């Protein structure tokens, strides 16, 4: 279910956990711009593609590189020369119909491609998923949750702000366990994650067919190579943790 993208292969020393990706972003509207900004701040390489007659608002000094193509033509998309297996496609066009068409095109050209599309309702999400989108980002779902949380669970909303939305020391990330780490063969309860300044939220278990297991202590999970840990921690603690992992 979760196609994994070689997450924790080689990592650079100074920015331990972030891996640069090649990203193709279709559409540069309000959402596209925000996406671009966030992707760039995380160090990804982004190529922006827009339709021939889409209006694009670009500040002259922003250095944004935009390619214009006819998105209806396969040749134009093939001419972008994208390594589909290594890249992520974002369909963030303003019109739902265009996104849907784009997902269909990309999936038919590159069946293995990782395609993310934006949607504005359950209805659109259903169609995009059917068309083959790997994941769908609902423009309003997360926002509405946030608005409701501020009213009913202010602490939760502020905690999520700290962990997810604000660019600060705290980060949520995933770590794939390599062979021969000290964690291999151990049970989750044996490891003092908290003392390492790390909170383990969930595990994707390879043996269970990539099933998502939340670690709210109902199951004492045994860790193996290939498992993916989803953790929240401060950056320094993540670096330390990865150092320990490397030592084996």
């Amino acid at each position, binding site marked *: 279910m979760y196609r994994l993208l070689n997450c924790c292969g080689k990592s650079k020393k100074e920015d331990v956990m972030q891996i640069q990706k090649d990203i193709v972003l279709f559409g540069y509207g309000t959402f596209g711009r925000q996406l671009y900004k966030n*992707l760039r701040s995380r160090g990804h390489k982004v190529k922006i593609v827009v339709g021939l007659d889409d209006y694009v608002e670009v500040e002259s000094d922003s250095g944004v590189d935009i390619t214009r193509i006819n998105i209806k033509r396969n040749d134009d998309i093939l001419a972008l020369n994208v390594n589909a297996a290594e890249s992520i496609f974002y369909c963030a066009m303003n019109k739902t119909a265009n996104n849907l068409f784009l997902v269909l095109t990309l999936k038919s050209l590159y069946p293995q491609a990782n395609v993310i599309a934006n949607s504005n309702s359950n209805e659109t999400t259903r169609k995009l998923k059917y068309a083959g989108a790997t994941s769908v980002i609902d423009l309003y779902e997360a926002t509405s949750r946030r608005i409701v949380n501020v009213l009913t669970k202010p602490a939760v909303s502020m905690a999520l702000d700290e962990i997810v939305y604000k660019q600060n020391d705290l980060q949520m990330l995933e770590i794939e366990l390599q062979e021969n780490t000290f964690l291999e063969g151990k049970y989750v309860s044996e490891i003092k994650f908290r003392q390492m300044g790390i909170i383990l939220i969930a595990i994707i278990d390879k043996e269970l067919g990539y099933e998502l297991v939340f670690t709210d202590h109902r199951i004492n999970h045994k860790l193996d190579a290939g498992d993916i840990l989803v953790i929240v921690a401060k950056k320094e603690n993540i670096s330390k943790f990865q150092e320990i992992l490397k030592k084996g």
Partner: protein
Amino acid sequence: MEKPKHKLLSFAYFLESSKVYNKIKKFVYDLIENDEYKYKRYFDIFMIFVILSSVTLLVMDVKRHIPHWLDDFDLYFVTTVFVVEYLLRMWVYSDIHKIIIDEYEESSYFDKEVSYYSLFTNIVKNKWAYMVSFSAIIDLIAILPSYRGLRVLRVFVLFRAFKMLRYTKSLTGFLYVLKNKKFELMTLLTLSTFFIFIAGIMLYVFEGDNENPNIHNLFDAFYWALITISTVGYGDIAPVTPEGRIVTMLIIFTGIGLISFVTSIIVSSFNERLSVLREDRVVQEVGKKKKLTVVCGYGLLGRLVVKGLQKEGVEFIIIDRSEEMAAVAYNDGYHAICADATKGTIFEKLGIDDRISHVLCLTSDDIQNAFIAVNVKSLNSEVYVTARCSDQEIATKMEYAHVDQVIMPEEVAGMMGAVYAGEPVAFEVLLSIIEEKEKTHINEIAIAEGSFLDNKMIGEVDFERLRLILLGVFKRSEESKLGEFIFNPSDEFVLNAGDNLVCIGYSTAVANLKRKM
């Protein structure tokens, strides 16, 4: 001459500053005039009972004499109640002591002697304004039947029935409809009076001269004209001459026209009024709630938010500018009204001063949202306002207007999208937690005073047994309600009452801990 003046003034000031006096007056006002006051209902029911009993006695008295004690009840009790009510209404209508103070202040400003004459006339004028109001006149007439000297006054008991209008809201709604179409109805009344007048005179001229044995005078002719034009047509007086029959035929046609005209005016007026009546009902229904959230805009985002609020048990009302959207929300089973949220009226109606706690501006138009936010903030800056926005520049302006939370859907979604690029698994976990698609949710638990977590160290709490993952704690502080977020607090961290734990876990696990609190 100096002394009494001062006495009057000091008495007026005494009333102005007296807490007890003002409290009593406020209570009386609420009880008899304020529809929002919860005990007014009991007063209304009591008055309706008194009126109905008095009307029943009138009817019973027609055929047989009622017992003496019942007559006394009617004469003394009912009359007393009405007189007292009349006087109380006159009392709360305005404040005499304020007039006195104003008068004295004005005269001292101009260094003049206070003129008793102008003071007196001002007071009388003020109260007179109440006495000549429509409802006050009805009230007064309703008291008259208590005077037993004139039997014809007994009929005025029916004015007591009129008084009932005061105590029932739906009936006032009907009167309002008539009042609204006053001009049209008056035109029609004049027109029909004119026709009746003409037709009556014509018939009298043609048949009054012994031609028709039933028409003795002009009154009979007018009576006949009204019965015919209204299409009632008793037939006790019928025209006998060809001329009279031609007049009849003409006024029958005009009659049909007039009747259908009246009907259509009243029906259309009711239709116009219907949405207002429904709005009133919705406002009244949510009016009982203490903390109310107002959602402006029922678009894609509005719908999702409303669904979330419903699930969390938040009391809310939807306002949408478009009639169609308001109807959709209403049909979805929510409290919804069609209103312009950029105007103050609707918020005042809903209780901006004490009832509304949150306002969410979620229309798809940024400028509209800014407009609503400023409107609400200018009415009451205490209300927590959340505004949706897609433009950074407008967001800055909203923050300048002290909007408490400016949220940009594109920004939130953009951030989520960027998380996916580096951490696809973390993204899915995040999505499932945020959108609550699985049973594991993120939740908060406030530590209650004296509960088993109060004054405990984190290390002493077995979160494993509680089946919860502790993300962090909001330490209560003096300055802000939530305080600072402390991520993954150490074992030595001491929990106190008022702190908030942020946990991830099964909803039942959270409920379990909350129960233990």
